[in-house]
């Protein structure tokens, strides 16, 4: 039986706590720009992070809490992070969220009772890598947004890990350590701005900058409301709503939406459509499911040319084609004039022939070739520069 997932949302200020809890959030993630990579909240020192966490606990003592500490770690940050962990020690959160593997030993050392939650945003996940993360100490993992449903289903069958998934909100698509917006006049730290890609007109991307660098978000936000039925079939511990920087009213609507579909075994199509409309109406960007159903970028994975080449032994490269006369071949591996050879063109055409008319560059007839020499063969229609002369591998 699949457990009901928690609805998780980021909290940056005391004023957000009650509205989010009332709307149905069951996991509050304390977010602070000091330690959280792309937090849009002000940068507060450790005692204020602790203060906010303590406040959450006083209002809702049984709720799941976590603190985001997902910076890409540079050495100068280590003392600050240890200071944060020491502040949290007395009354720790349920979990610490991290993405840099270097933080894991610090979590183990200073907050051993906290659940280390690995965030694989923009990263990669396969069963092997997830096993390694588990072996290193991750107890909970937020899976990246690029994993399609079929794979999510497979991954989440491992009950030893609490699996989290972002169901709604901005999709981070690039993180630069460089502060880039200062090249645009008048832009300052913590600026959130929208920009159109001039080579993909009509696509507006949001950029945010803080002392951690510049972050770029997708031209649409992720929304999995329409996929509620599938979503409910995944053994997820947490549905993450990333509404950072979008305001209390926005986030309350989103929490309400997801909480309402959690409450129904089989939400109707009409309800899902209506809920989606409500969310789309209040969103500043188009809402889409992204790669949730399928990720076709996989189709582009293999290099067709080199895969094709793997069936053959490369004998040479055609480097000069003189129409109706000859082809100059740079020999990579010896071959004989009697060999049955194939020419693979850059366009992936295969031209098969045997008994080459083989000669040296000064027109002496050759029966065989030598490595790293140039030889001539008779011109063959369809062969272009860059074609490979190959022989079928045994």
């Amino acid at each position, binding site marked *: 039986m699949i457990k009901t997932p928690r609805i998780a949302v980021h909290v940056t200020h005391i004023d957000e706590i009650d509205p989010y809890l009332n709307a149905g959030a069951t996991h509050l993630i304390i977010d602070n720009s000091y330690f959280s990579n792309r937090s849009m909240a002000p940068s507060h020192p450790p005692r204020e992070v602790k203060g906010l966490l303590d406040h959450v606990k006083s209002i809702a003592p049984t709720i799941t809490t976590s603190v985001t500490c997902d910076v*890409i770690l*540079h*050495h100068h940050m*280590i003392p600050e992070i240890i200071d944060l962990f020491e502040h949290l020690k007395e009354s720790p959160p349920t979990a610490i969220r991290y993405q840099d*593997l*270097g933080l*894991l*030993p*610090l979590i183990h050392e200073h907050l051993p009772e906290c659940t280390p939650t690995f965030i694989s945003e*923009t*990263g*990669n996940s*396969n069963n*092997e*890598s997830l096993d*390694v993360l588990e072996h*290193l100490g991750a107890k909970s993992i937020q899976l990246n947004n690029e994993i399609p449903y079929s*794979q999510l289903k*497979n*991954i989440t069958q491992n009950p030893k890990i609490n699996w989290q998934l972002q169901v709604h909100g901005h999709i981070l698509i*690039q*993180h*630069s*350590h*460089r*502060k*880039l*917006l200062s*090249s*645009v006049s*008048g832009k300052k730290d913590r600026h959130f*701005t929208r*920009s*159109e*890609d001039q*080579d*993909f007109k009509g696509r507006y991307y949001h*950029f945010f900058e803080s002392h951690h660098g510049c972050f770029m978000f997708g031209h649409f936000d992720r929304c999995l409301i329409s996929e509620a039925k599938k979503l409910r079939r995944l053994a997820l511990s947490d549905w993450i709503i990333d509404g950072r920087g979008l305001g209390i009213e926005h986030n309350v609507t989103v929490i309400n939406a997801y909480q309402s579909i959690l409450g129904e075994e089989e939400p109707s199509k009409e309800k899902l459509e209506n809920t989606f409309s409500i969310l789309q109406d209040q969103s500043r960007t188009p809402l889409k499911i*992204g790669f949730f159903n399928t990720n076709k*970028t*996989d189709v*582009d*994975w*293999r*290099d067709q*040319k*080199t*895969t094709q*080449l793997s069936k*053959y032994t490369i004998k040479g490269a055609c*480097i000069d*084609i003189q129409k109706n*006369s000859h082809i*100059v071949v*740079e020999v990579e*591996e010896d071959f004989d004039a009697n060999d049955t050879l194939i020419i693979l063109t850059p366009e992936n055409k295969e031209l098969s022939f045997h008994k080459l008319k083989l000669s040296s*560059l000064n027109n002496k007839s050759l029966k065989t070739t030598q490595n*790293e020499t*140039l030889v001539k063969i008779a011109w063959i229609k369809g062969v272009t*520069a860059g074609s490979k002369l190959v022989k079928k591998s045994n």
Partner: protein
Amino acid sequence: MNKKPELVAPGGNFEKVKIAYRYGADAVYVGGLAFGLRKSAQNLSPAQLQKAVDLANEEGRKLYVVLNGYTHQDELAELPAYLDVLEKCQVHALIISDLGTLSLAQKYTTRPLHTSTQASVSNWKAAEQWKKCGAKRVVVARECSITECKDIQEKAGIEVETFIHGAMCVSYSGKCTISNYSSGRDSNRGGCIQSCRHPFSFSENGQEELVHLMNAKDLMGVSLIPEIKAAGLHSLKIEGRMKSNLYLANTVAVYRDALDQDILQTQSISTYEKQLSNISNRGFSSGSLEKRADSKNSISANWNGYSKGCLFIGTIKHQDSEGYYYADIKSPFNANEQIELLHPQNKIESLDSPEFLSISNTPVEKIAQNSVIKFKSTKVISPYTLLQKPL
């Protein structure tokens, strides 16, 4: 005395592997038929990998193979067979970004494992974790300074390799999926279309501004070699498996020369920088090697094209018994234009206006792209000497 770092160069195809060794690389990194990040490079077949390893062994060099694309679940089953090929070839190391790939590589090979810069390791504690998982070396994030690299190497007790030259990702490598979302091609599996280099429009106070916001300048760290040697960093890497023979030869030759100097004079640095700037580039910065890169020092925001001082013309392939040199020409030129030779010893000299002949012995005035020509010269020219045209 400061230790000399290993110079690691890109080998986009088998010819480039030979060029890299000829011009002074200690090691070359190449892609195989799968699991790499440069889908469009002419990656090496298993037979070519074996030949490249044999060549490296003969010359006392190293050959590393990249497996630095993000391996997805569906491909995991294919990985052991490929690892077996790499084990049989006895390549000198595997460069890996995914923890799962690393785990399988440990299981199926005895090859040393290097963590790719794609893993964005930026601190010694993360390096320790990779070491714990079996990595012998970490190619650190390009956001690390020389001081941070030194700390990582010393505190984690791991070999550190850092990039010294070439194109840069604007993002932390591996922390980018722009191509995935903008074009359906996977940034981290060899499909990056570099849409980060596009112009973006920003509206400010009613005015629209066009900026190449994320168009990172190329990295050039030749002036920092004394600091790098003093820091004792293990290896320096040159980016560019997709770049021309001339880029490769020129860059390797300059860094070889610079690394071999006991004391690097200001005059020499300036000469090296000029020579490196001659090859097509997006403007240069020292990235984050000295201090954190920012938009002012490391972005070509007002981009108006590549800069270059010379053009790659071709590669000398062979000399016949009659003394003719044969060149594989990649860019057209006229016989009366000044052409220079870049020799493997990093010596550049003018070619003495020879008569260029087709291989049918006809004099050629306009030399075409993708043709083989021959000529005689009073200069001593070895195979893989490069021809360039000053602009």
